[in-house]
Structures are given as structure tokens and as C-alpha cells.
């Protein structure tokens, strides 16, 4: 399903966090959301999975504004895998975690039916977590846990996937396996990624957030230019497509010197003050 974010403004404690953010993910697109720490990536995701109401602007999944849908109806369209610090899932098995994906499909009186069991079983197989389906979630490794959470999201049978740093703290093989899994789902995806290399490998399009506004958006090679990497991320780097078709970023050993980006910083300060 298509995701449209249109002229979004978000304010927290009177501070503007997102300013006039627009982006689009067409059906089956994988869109990467990148940007330095504090640029507003996770905040943008929260407005998409209906946890944070924007001050202004619209988030549409399909044709409907998510804030005009009920929480459950929105969750039947959009599944999120998040870095949730507040959780304590001790004592739940992998299957029970995956089954949480069926929560939005039931009211208080709903009982699990054949469709629920099929969705859970299917998600378990697709994410390769069958071998430890009956184990306690707490006993799994980081890579295994992320696959379980992705399975939970797929059990929701979503039309849009929202991923927040899914590959953090994972070893390189686990990262690649997860990327392959996401690709294989064929579901429209909006993914916050810290690692630009990984973003370049996974995504069709990138949206770069900087200080709560979109700094650039489009195909990977058009977005990750040396100028943008210097301005937004403060590094000297070049992006190119290698012979094997993979886009790689080569970083220079020295970051951009403070004085060098002063002009840009100055411009940014003025802009912020105006807000």
C-alpha cells in the first residue's frame, strides 16, 4: 500500500521536531530514512504508526489518513518493529511473541481462528524462526530476536512495514539476512537506518532528514552526493555503484573540519531562529 506523508509538522514541548516534512513510498517500495542523531527520524515513524499526533499535516496509508482510522484499523495496515526500551517479554515464547501480531485483528471477545494460526505459522516459516519457535524469547541472540520481531510484524499481515533500526547491534551476516528477508516480503517499507552503506544496499529511495526537515530525497545515488554527506553527516565521502551492482560509500579518514561547514551551520542557525 502507498504511504504518503504530506507537509507534516510535529511539536514536542513547544519545540518544533519536524518541519514541513513530505515523503512518499509507492507500493512495494523500500524507502530508507536516514539522518544524524536527533534529526527527527523516529518521531516521523511515530506519526506513521499512530503513536504521535502531528500538529499539522497528514499521514496516509493507502487513501486514508491514519489519524482518521481507529487504532486497531491502523494497526491492521501498518506493522512496526521498534527499539522499545519499556518492554519486558520475559516468559513469552517465540510463538507467543509472533502471535502478538494478531492483536489488532481481534476485539475483546475475539478468539483465535484458523486464519490467525496460519498467519503466525506462515510468518514463523518466512523469517526462519521455526527451529526456536517454542523457546523463551529472552534466551535468544540479538539476530534471532530481530527475526522474531519481524515475524510478529508479518503476522499482522500488514500493507506497510515501519522499521526502526532493525539491524542495530547485529553482526554483518545477521544484517544481510534481515535485509534479504525484508526484500522478500514485497511489502511497502519505511525503514530508519543508521548505517548508510546498509541503507544504500537495501533501499530503492532514501529520504535524508536534517534538523527536522527533508534535506534530500530520491534514488540512492542522487541523494548521497559528496556535498550532502559533508553538509548533513559531516564526513568526506564518495558514493558509487560498483561492478557487482552494489552501491558503496567510501569514507575519507578525516571528517569535515568545523570551519569548513561553518557557512552551512550559519545558514541553519538562521533558519532555526526564524521558526
Amino acid at each position, binding site marked *: 500500500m502507498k504511504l504518503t506523508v504530506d507537509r507534516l509538522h510535529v511539536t514536542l514541548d513547544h519545540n518544533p521536531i519536524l518541519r514541513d516534512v513530505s515523503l512518499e513510498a509507492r507500493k512495494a517500495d523500500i524507502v530508507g530514512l536516514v539522518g544524524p542523531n536527533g534529526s527527527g527520524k523516529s518521531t516521523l515513524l*511515530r506519526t506513521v*504508526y*499512530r*503513536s504521535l499526533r502531528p500538529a499539522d499535516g497528514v499521514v496516509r496509508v493507502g487513501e486514508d489518513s491514519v489519524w482518521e482510522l*481507529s*487504532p*486497531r*484499523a*491502523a*494497526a*491492521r495496515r*501498518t*506493522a*512496526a518493529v*521498534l527499539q*522499545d*526500551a*519499556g*518492554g*519486558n*517479554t*520475559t*516468559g*513469552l*515464547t517465540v510463538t*507467543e*511473541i509472533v502471535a*502478538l*501480531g*494478531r*492483536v*489488532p485483528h*481481534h476485539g*475483546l*471477545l*475475539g478468539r483465535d481462528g484458523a486464519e490467525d494460526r496460519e498467519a503466525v505459522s506462515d510468518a514463523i516459516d518466512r523469517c526462519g524462526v521455526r527451529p526456536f519457535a517454542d523457546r*523463551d524469547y*529472552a534466551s535468544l541472540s540479538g539476530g534471532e530476536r530481530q527475526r522474531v520481531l519481524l515475524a510478529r510484524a508479518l503476522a*499482522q499481515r500488514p500493507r506497510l512495514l*515501519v522499521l526502526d533500526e532493525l539491524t542495530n547491534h547485529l553482526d554483518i551476516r545477521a544484517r544481510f539476512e534481515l535485509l534479504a528477508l525484508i526484500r522478500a516480503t514485497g511489502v511497502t517499507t519505511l525503514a530508519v537506518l543508521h548505517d548508510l552503506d546498509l541503507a544504500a544496499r537495501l533501499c530503492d529511495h532514501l529520504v535524508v532528514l536534517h534538523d527536522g526537515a527533508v534535506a534530500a530525497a530520491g534514488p540512492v545515488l542522487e541523494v548521497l552526493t559528496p556535498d550532502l554527506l559533508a553538509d548533513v553527516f559531516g564526513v568526506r565521502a564518495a558514493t558509487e555503484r560498483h561492478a557487482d551492482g552494489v552501491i558503496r560509500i567510501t569514507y575519507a579518514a578525516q571528517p569535515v573540519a568545523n570551519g569548513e561547514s561553518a557557512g552551512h551551520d550559519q545558514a541553519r542557525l538562521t533558519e532555526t531562529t526564524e521558526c
Partner: protein
Amino acid sequence: MVLAALVGAGLAVSGAVLQTVVSNPLADPIVLGFSYGATLGAVLVITLGGGAALAGLGVSAAAFLGAVAAGALVFVLGQRRGRLAPTRLVLAGVAVGYVFLSATSYVQLQATPTELRTVMFWMLGSVSGAQWDQLPTVTVVVLVTTALLGLFGRRLNALLAGDESATALGVDVNRLRAVLLVLAALLTGTVIAVAGSIGFVGLMIPHLVRLTTGADHRRLLPLTALLGAVYLVLVDLLSRTLNRPDEIPLGILTALLGAPFFLWLLRHNKGLD
């Protein structure tokens, strides 16, 4: 006997729900201040006797009002910008508990030795003082609230995944917390009102069930109710027979018998780490 079963089930279920609602394994009706509210209500009536009787309040009714008042205070103080925050709820519960405890201590200082003994016995809990006319009310409240809480099993599971993840799963986290808190306060208030503030059951029975059969609330809540009921019936029998003709207060035996077993289970299970 029936009352012991109802009280055991009610305390254990509300403990299980509260632990998940405030995301804290130490939560129970005592930590959240409900029990201290009930104690103050009861102690006031016992010591003021005539005065309160004039107002038409029995010990049970006063204890119930105390528990619900404490619950309401915790509910109000546990909010931050209109949202119920887990840590804030626990801290509010502890603080409210201390205030009620201080008030109780002060009232006790003014009491006569006979009143003090009654107070002491009430605080340690007993189901023997139950009157038959209270039984229908207690039965209805415990059965209805427990059944209602049981309907939230799936959503309680979602809450275990953390607030943001639960929200993304379509759960209105704030409203869920509010509803569950109200139901749990009502349940504990009713139970403590007739049986006094019995410790241990609300805290430990849910953990016992989690350690043995896992944390899925759709299994946890019914099993917790059952184990809580069986456990308190057994303890009640012992409390009446061990030291005949006197009765040992329930609150003493629940922990004395249960804690060693719980510690043993804790040592032989690595699931809590």
C-alpha cells in the same frame, strides 16, 4: 472456605494484572497503596467505633472506601500530561501508601489495647470474621471483575512488548491502563474489605504461575486465579487447625509457607534473569 477461595483468587489476579500494567514485577495491591488505604479505613472504624457506626459504616465498607480512595489518588497522581506513566504510578502508589500508613499509625496511638488487638488481627488478615450477608457481594464482584480482566489477556500480552510496540499493535495503551487499574482497584478493595490486608498472595502467586507456565496472560490469569484460590483455602485450613482453638492470622502463614517454596523455585528457574 468459599470466601478464602474468592479472596485468594481476587488478590492473585489483581496482582498479576497490576504487575503488567505498571511494568514492574514488584507491584501488588500493597505496593500500589490500595492495602494501606483499606487499613486506614478499617482502623478508623475500629478505633472510633461509635462515631463511625453513626455514619453507618462497618469495618468492611470503610476498608473498601479506603482502598478505592487510595486507588483514585494513585490514578490521579500517576498521570503525566494526561498519560498514565508506569514508573510514576508505582512511585505514586508507594508515596500514597506511606501517607496512609502514617495516618494509620497515628490513629493506632490513640487506641486502647483491646482495639489495638482487633486492629492487629485485621491487618494480618482473616476470613473467619466473614459474615454470610457479605458473601453474595464478594462472589459477584470477584467473578465479574476477574472475568472482565480475563478478556484483556491478548492486550495485556501486547503491553509486555512495551508501550510504543503495543501502540503499533493497535492498543490504546493509556485507556487500557486506566480500565485495568479501575478494575483491579475494585477487585482488591472488595477482597481486602472482607479479609483484611493479606500479603504475599498478590505478589507471589502470579510469579509462581509465570515461572512454571509462562507469561501469556490468556493462560496466566485463569491459572493465577485458581492457584490463588487453592492456596488461600489451604492456608485458611492450616490457620484454623495448627494452633487450636486459636486462629493464626492468615497474613502470617501465607508468607511463612509460601516464601520458602517461592525461593526454591526461583533458584531452580533461570527464566527471570
